[in-house]
């Protein structure tokens, strides 16, 4: 693993699918640079994509007046990705379990579950307005 120095990139992006793709691509590049193997790079970039989809689609509802903020920080111990929107706010406690038998065949509702599956830590912070998701992947396994 590399990453003896901390580095940080921050973007403010419009509420579009292009922004989602940019977040995914940046996460992929940052994770590769941090020294993760291909499988972990995939997991990190997919988690970042899902967080960006939530921000653009469910948070900002594609509003041209709202922005998402994406930051990527590599510290000696972790890769930290923060995605924030300006939407009405997301309470993770209200999210249905996509693995429950009644929900298994639903056409949506797996994004946050995948983020939690792929990252070591996931934190939600309510903004006013909006939600910030912090996704953390440790560089060295505990």
């Amino acid at each position: 693993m590399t990453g003896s120095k901390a580095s940080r990139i921050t973007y403010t992006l419009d509420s579009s699918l292009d922004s989602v793709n940019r977040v995914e691509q940046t996460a992929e590049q940052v994770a590769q640079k941090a020294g993760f193997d291909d499988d972990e790079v995939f997991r990190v970039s997919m988690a970042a994509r899902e967080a960006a989809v939530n921000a653009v689609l469910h948070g900002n509802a594609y509003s041209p007046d709202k922005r998402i903020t994406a930051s990527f920080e590599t510290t000696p111990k972790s890769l930290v990705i923060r995605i924030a929107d300006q939407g009405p706010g997301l309470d993770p406690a209200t999210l249905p379990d996509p693995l429950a038998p009644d929900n298994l065949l639903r056409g949506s509702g797996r994004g946050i579950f995948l983020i939690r599956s792929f990252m070591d830590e996931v934190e939600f912070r309510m903004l006013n307005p909006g939600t910030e998701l912090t996704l953390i992947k440790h560089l060295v396994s505990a």
Partner: protein
Amino acid sequence: MSSVKISTRQVDGVTILDMSGRITLGEGSVQLRDAVRDLLAKGQKHILLNLGDVTYIDSSGIGELVSAFTTAKNQGGELKLLNLTRKVHDLLQITKLYTVFDVKDDEASAIGAFKK
């Protein structure tokens, strides 16, 4: 980022959709939805999705696979998956969908498994 490409062929009463690229929120998911709906509307109810060249699928794409599966089933059809890449296989495992779908890794046996 390029979206999904879909080409269609018929083998022994089964419509095979050879898919390549990314099935993600937006164009990729919509293309899959439209392709399956068109087939069902035309009465082609035995559908095999060949995902061998699908490089990436997100939660929206997974949801679209589920919707395609249930839509086909609700209309008296069958939809099976063929040639999953390791990443797609892993995603279906994590989401507990692997056992929901009928997943095949051989085209001939997949075609033979449809109830005709």
